[in-house]
């Protein structure tokens, strides 16, 4: 679908903002052809809009918007257009913590319970030992789970953290890398406690203000009033379709920052100047060195496409690897309809930001790979084409997995009990209440942000919630019976087991 030329996109590319600038110089020779590459790749991926800035030696050498903010208005993206940077916010949180470390108000190895005395994890050893450094380096052992606690829920930041104590570790403490948004949120709340003001105010006053990131913010709430904002889009077979902005204030320190390519360029300068911006030191060099040093091994890159990469690790809010004999500092960000990339190569004093408003696309990382080859020299691969190929293969694998599930469906089975027997309230200490009701057209499930999802019978006592985003496209819901043939719990794929709340016995109701 993405390889079909989309006329609307061609059109928008032609109207893309042209920036006034100097003619190409020898120093910028590498960037020759970049516009073309991006425009073609955007078309291949079906991306509505995109904004890119590149900084080298303290100067913005490239800043440009492509495509449109919103396919329904056709307004062009420029380098000032606001996008969600998603998880690229994590490095802001790490830098904020670093500023407090510089002031002696925090310490990397201080226990989180020093800042949040009520903080608790599943295992008491973890509760006792968990440090600020752990919170920022994805080594809690909780794995990439628990996101359903905040995504679309009404829970506050504090409530999300309180509830995560019920999350059973998926690996032994610090034994392996596991991306954990709620731990970064926890670091953000610890920062708020140490600084005596909200994480948002701290980021605004201590980072946005000195870096002249005047239009950047930490919430979708003021976006409605702001001019020049990109609308998130979902890639569909008919091209990008606008979708609403996602409010993620309750996990903000892990991903809620909105910014533009031109303002993120200031952030890149700050990172490349090791904590300095326009002659003003905002962070001690030693502190930013700590942030940019490996803390957790993230895997063993054995990528045949990039044989020069041997190490990949996570620092504090940033990913680290070696590529073509240089250290690469990089992170991606993604939230509904928004995908981004921030990459710096300190040894070359160069870095870039890539902001896009359509998901899924593979260009936000492929373009970064292309720029790595551009600046590091040697063989430059067509990374967008490679990513497209991988994406197609991934789609085929996913389709095969779905087909396999269909094949494994047992035919001719029925639910064990009459549908009304499945009705009831089911609870989980972490995810709260889940309600199953029996309507005229069958069972419906309601939980948190998802209300009245129709459940179709799959086989035996398993139902499927097709198309809901409860936990992936296809959520399986399996009821379990006890020895008395009563439904005792329900297992929701991706969330876990919810125990049925016992109906009060007749005559035992308090006050009766």
């Amino acid at each position: 679908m993405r390889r079909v030329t989309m006329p609307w996109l061609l059109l928008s590319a032609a109207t893309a903002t042209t920036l006034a600038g100097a003619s190409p110089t020898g120093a910028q020779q590498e960037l020759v052809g970049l516009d073309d590459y991006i425009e073609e790749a955007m078309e291949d991926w079906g991306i509505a809009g995109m904004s890119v800035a590149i900084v080298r030696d303290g100067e913005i050498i490239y800043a440009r918007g492509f495509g449109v903010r919103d396919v329904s208005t056709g307004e062009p993206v420029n380098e000032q257009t606001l996008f969600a940077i998603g998880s690229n916010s994590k490095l802001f949180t790490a830098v904020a913590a670093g500023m407090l470390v510089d002031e002696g108000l925090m310490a990397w190895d201080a226990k989180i319970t020093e800042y949040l005395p009520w903080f608790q994890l599943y295992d008491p050893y973890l509760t006792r030992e968990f440090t600020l450094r752990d919170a920022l380096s994805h080594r809690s052992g909780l794995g990439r789970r628990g996101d359903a606690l905040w995504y679309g829920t009404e829970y506050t930041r504090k409530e999300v953290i309180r509830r995560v104590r019920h999350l059973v570790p998926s690996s032994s403490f610090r034994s392996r890398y596991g991306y954990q948004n709620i731990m970064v949120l926890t670091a953000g709340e610890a920062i708020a406690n140490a600084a005596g003001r909200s994480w948002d105010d701290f980021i605004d006053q201590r980072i946005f203000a000195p870096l002249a990131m005047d239009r950047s913010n930490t919430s979708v709430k003021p976006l409605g009033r702001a001019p020049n904002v990109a609308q998130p889009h979902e890639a569909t077979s008919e091209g990008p379709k606008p979708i609403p902005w996602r409010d993620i204030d309750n996990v903000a320190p892990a991903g809620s920052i909105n910014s533009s390519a031109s303002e993120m360029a200031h952030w890149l300068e700050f990172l490349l100047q090791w904590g300095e911006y326009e002659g003003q030191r905002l962070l001690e060099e030693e502190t930013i060195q700590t942030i940019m040093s490996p803390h957790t091994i993230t895997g063993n890159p054995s990528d045949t496409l990039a044989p020069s990469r041997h190490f990949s690790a996570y620092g504090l809010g940033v990913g680290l690897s070696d590529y073509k004999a240089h250290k690469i500092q990089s992170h991606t960000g993604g939230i509904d309809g928004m995908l981004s990339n921030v990459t710096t190569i300190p040894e070359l004093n160069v870095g870039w930001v890539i902001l896009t408003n359509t998901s899924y696309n593979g260009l936000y990382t492929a373009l970064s790979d292309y720029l790595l080859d551009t600046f590091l020299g040697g063989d430059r691969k067509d990374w967008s084409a490679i990513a497209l190929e991988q994406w197609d293969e991934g789609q085929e694998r996913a389709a095969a997995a779905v087909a396999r599930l269909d094949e494994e469906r047992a035919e001719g089975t029925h639910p064990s009990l009459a549908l009304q027997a499945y009705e009831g309230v089911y609870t989980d200490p972490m995810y709260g209440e889940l309600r199953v009701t029996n309507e005229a057209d069958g069972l419906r499930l309601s939980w948190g942000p998802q209300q009245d999802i129709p459940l179709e019978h799959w086989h035996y006592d398993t139902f499927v919630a097709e198309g809901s985003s409860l936990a992936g496209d296809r959520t399986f819901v399996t009821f379990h019976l006890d020895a008395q043939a009563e439904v005792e719990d329900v297992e929701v794929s991706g969330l876990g087991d919810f125990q049925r709340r016992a109906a009060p016995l007749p005559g035992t109701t308090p006050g009766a």
Partner: protein
Amino acid sequence: MDRRIRRTLLTPVAILALCLASAVPGVAQDPLADLDRYVRQAREDWNVAGLAVGVVRHDSLVFARGFGARDVRTGEPVNGETLFAIGSNSKAWTALGLGILVDEGRVRWDDRVTDHLSWFQLYDPYVTREMTVRDLLTHRSGLSRGDAIWYGTPYDREEVIRRVRSLEPSWSFRSHYGYQNIMFITAGQIIESVTGMTWDRFIEERFFGPLGMDASVTSTDSLPTRGNVAQPHVIVDGELVPVPWRDIDNAGPAGSILSNVTEMGAWLRMQLAHGEFGRRRIVSDSVIEEQRTPQMIAGAAPDTLQPTHFYVYGLGIALKDYHGYKVVHHGGGIDGMLSQTAFVPELDLGVVVLTNTEPNNLHSALVNRILDAYIPGVEPRDWSALYLERFRRDQERADSLRQVREADRVPGTAPSHPLPAYAGTYEHEMYGPLTIELEQGALVFRRHGNRGVMVHWHYDTFRVDFDHPRESDNFLTFDLDRTGDVVSVEVPGMGVFQRVTEEEEGTDP
């Protein structure tokens, strides 16, 4: 600041031109051409008694030579067959030994240690429960060294492991890299527990035999019957002093292998052939890969001279990037013996340097020098000179610290008690007993055969000057209780030893 935004013209032709530009390979030159001369000079500069260098390339030993003397007293020359201690380079063997058991389905890397050694226990119950085979091999237990449990003591391997349960963690579990020999001894005991064979026999049967390493051994016990053996030396006041071989059988799996550069060449060839040697498979490719997979961040690179960004530990072996290549390496050190091995799978290159003198950093310098010579586009640096300069600076710093220490000595104080009051036996739960006796008017310190004369420093602190030339002096401080009796002595690096009262001594069978 100038913030002009620059844009460039779109020319697809330019992209093509960029893509087509590629490096022209340099003219091949023998990377070993100058090595002989370089090593000779460097050995003199460092005052190393003897050393041997081995280089493996494309599955053959392309260089195996000795330099200097096995023993400065005899002057007998070192050659490619001279036996040295490889020290901690043994750790990779223990890890791969477990790898063989992983191949056989008898051990898994993530098995809990207690699955195999039910009596294994560490200070914190969570750590006891969670500690895995992988943790044993990656220096992330949170325990700092505790080497005095085994070094020079009569405790056997199992007893050393039993005693380590009293070692309080220095860091939170897996939060910090902390070099840990006793965890490797534990790994060796797992081999014994699973196979019913000592670690030593396992290493002999599964590695030495198939690799044709007939001269290599896991213990110093057969050394007296062997001819071509290097004597350990320690530099004391600029002079090379021969010292006895150190028996470390009780820490064998952490460092007791003795070998020569020719036979180490076989080990390196097996590593570079992904577990095969002479068409025979010793260990699976997947175990070889697992061993060189990053497991634990080992901290910042040890020196800023190297073009290195990542310094991590695999399983019994260290890993780093160097000029864009992954280098698998390790060092080894025991009394008067220092060594270094390194191999670069991408270049099909392996290097080993064995020396019989402490201290020196010539082994690392030579490894770097040889790697440079083989890495395309790299001009070999004079690593010997670079490290020698740093080495001398470090020595000067140590000297100045010694002077600071002298200056901090409080003049004119006397011990609170007459010397006989300090004599007695003191006991540490983990490190065992030490005795202090009065001999010819002076206090004499003894712990497991390590003897030193105590010189009053100030108040109740004494400096111990050890007989062994390798031991640097230490400061012991006695503590009095409320009644004024000497009840304990604090030994830096170990902790507080409690005095054993006479009644207790009397009841001891």
